[in-house]
């Protein structure tokens, strides 16, 4: 595919690996806060081929991972109500709540449907006027404009049988929470390229200023991820802390203004609990006053469902890079992909699940080029 294949070129990747290896003289910890980037890193084996001195810490960048247990339980409750068509992105269907997941609700007669776009859920509401259609509106800022449009369109069309269960999360407050923690080990950040394509890059300037950490806006294909890492390492080696944009073909400083306008209209900032991490102030979006009639929590009376997280779960520590997945006592025993305790094992993008799937062996590594990329 155009604009994808070129950025997967193994030879050019080799050049980037070489350059990173050449410039790295000290150990550095770099965090990406985006499930898509984590997926790309693990799927392509990028972390295996980087110099040992560079540690990649997989941050809380997966909206599936960080959706709090209580929100899943609210979804399950709504989905099991008769007359409801519960629509969700595919990722969420296997996320377990306290007792079951959406698949199980479906097996018990709940009408749970996978949609590709939130507008598909609106269309279902139009086509099924005698049913209540509920859309599980999760995601970071990348997905929020689509979810916002669905609610906006529902309002425009005067739909009375559509509502959204909203659980949006924001990246900059998460980065701030991590970098301002006394236990912080992260030296530099890769900012999520598609989040920035919506929101622009301007939100990260103040973070760079305040905390003196380099932040590089990064894409998703292997060459993009490597370039993001390369620029962070270059800054760290030079002792600088700046905001850079390594995904310029997609991301502009100001972002997508039309999308931001819609977000400002449909959502308002709120405190949000992140699974395994705890509550981060002003790190989420909920429906704005004008649209609160579309709030599924209110419509279905599930606001008081409030489920505590597992006591043995150390997702939060893994997400902040304080421990590696296999250092958690529950890893692989009480907590597995089939019976996950926390965010990081729930989705295959989660650090613990990725570790479980991909790290069961120490395999010999064959670099893309013959230069000395130390293992």
């Amino acid at each position, binding site marked *: 595919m155009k604009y994808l294949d070129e950025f997967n070129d193994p030879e050019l990747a080799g*050049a980037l690996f070489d350059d990173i290896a050449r410039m790295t003289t000290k150990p550095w910890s770099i965090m990406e806060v985006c*499930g898509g980037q984590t997926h790309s890193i693990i799927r392509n084996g990028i972390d295996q081929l980087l110099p040992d001195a560079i540690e990649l810490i997989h941050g809380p960048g997966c909206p599936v991972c960080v959706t709090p247990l209580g929100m899943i339980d609210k979804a399950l409750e709504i989905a099991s109500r008769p007359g409801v068509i519960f629509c969700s992105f595919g990722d969420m269907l296997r996320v377990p709540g306290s007792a079951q997941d959406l698949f199980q609700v479906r097996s018990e007669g709940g009408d749970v449907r996978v949609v590709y776009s939130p507008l598909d859920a609106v269309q279902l509401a139009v086509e099924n006027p005698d049913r209540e259609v509920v859309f599980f509106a999760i995601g970071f800022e990348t997905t929020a404009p689509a979810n916002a449009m669905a609610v906006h369109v529902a309002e425009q069309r005067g739909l009375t049988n559509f509502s959204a269960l909203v659980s949006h999360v924001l990246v900059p407050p998460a980065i701030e929470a991590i970098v301002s923690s006394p236990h912080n080990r992260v030296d530099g950040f890769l900012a999520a390229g598609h989040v920035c394509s919506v929101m622009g890059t301007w939100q990260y300037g103040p973070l760079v200023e305040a905390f003196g950490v380099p932040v590089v806006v990064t894409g998703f294909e292997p060459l993009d991820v490597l370039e993001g890492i390369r620029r962070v390492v270059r800054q760290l080696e030079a002792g600088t802390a700046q905001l850079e944009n390594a995904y310029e073909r997609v991301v502009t400083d100001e972002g997508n203004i039309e999308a931001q306008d819609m977000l400002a209209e449909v959502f308002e900032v709120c405190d949000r609990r992140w699974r395994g991490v705890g509550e981060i102030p002003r790190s989420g979006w909920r429906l704005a006053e004008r649209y609160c009639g579309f709030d599924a929590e209110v419509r279905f009376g599930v606001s008081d469902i409030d489920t505590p997280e597992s006591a043995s779960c150390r997702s939060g520590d893994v997400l902040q890079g304080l421990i590696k997945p296999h250092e958690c006592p529950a890893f692989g025993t009480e907590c597995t992909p089939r019976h996950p305790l926390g965010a990081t094992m729930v989705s295959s993008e989660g650090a613990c699940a990725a570790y479980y799937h991909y790290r069961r062996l120490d395999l010999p590594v064959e670099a893309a080029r013959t230069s000395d990329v130390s293992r």
Partner: protein
Amino acid sequence: MCLAVPGQIIETREEAGIPMATISFDGIRKDICLAYLPDLGVGDYAIVHVGFAISKIDEASALETLEMFRELGVLDDELALDEASDP
């Protein structure tokens, strides 16, 4: 949150007042919402996420980036040669 892929606009239209487009991903055609990129037209490339075009792809910038990677490769080769010849 980030699974968004590049595709080319092959048709634009309006549906119930909302700007829509047919996007082609290497021959796979999907209807997507163009409301957030109203200035885009047929032939333009956009990043698409959950049925919405969220950002235009700047071709010049893409080519520049690739060229920069290629130059890095050449530079690396030269440096490797230098290192090999220095005892």
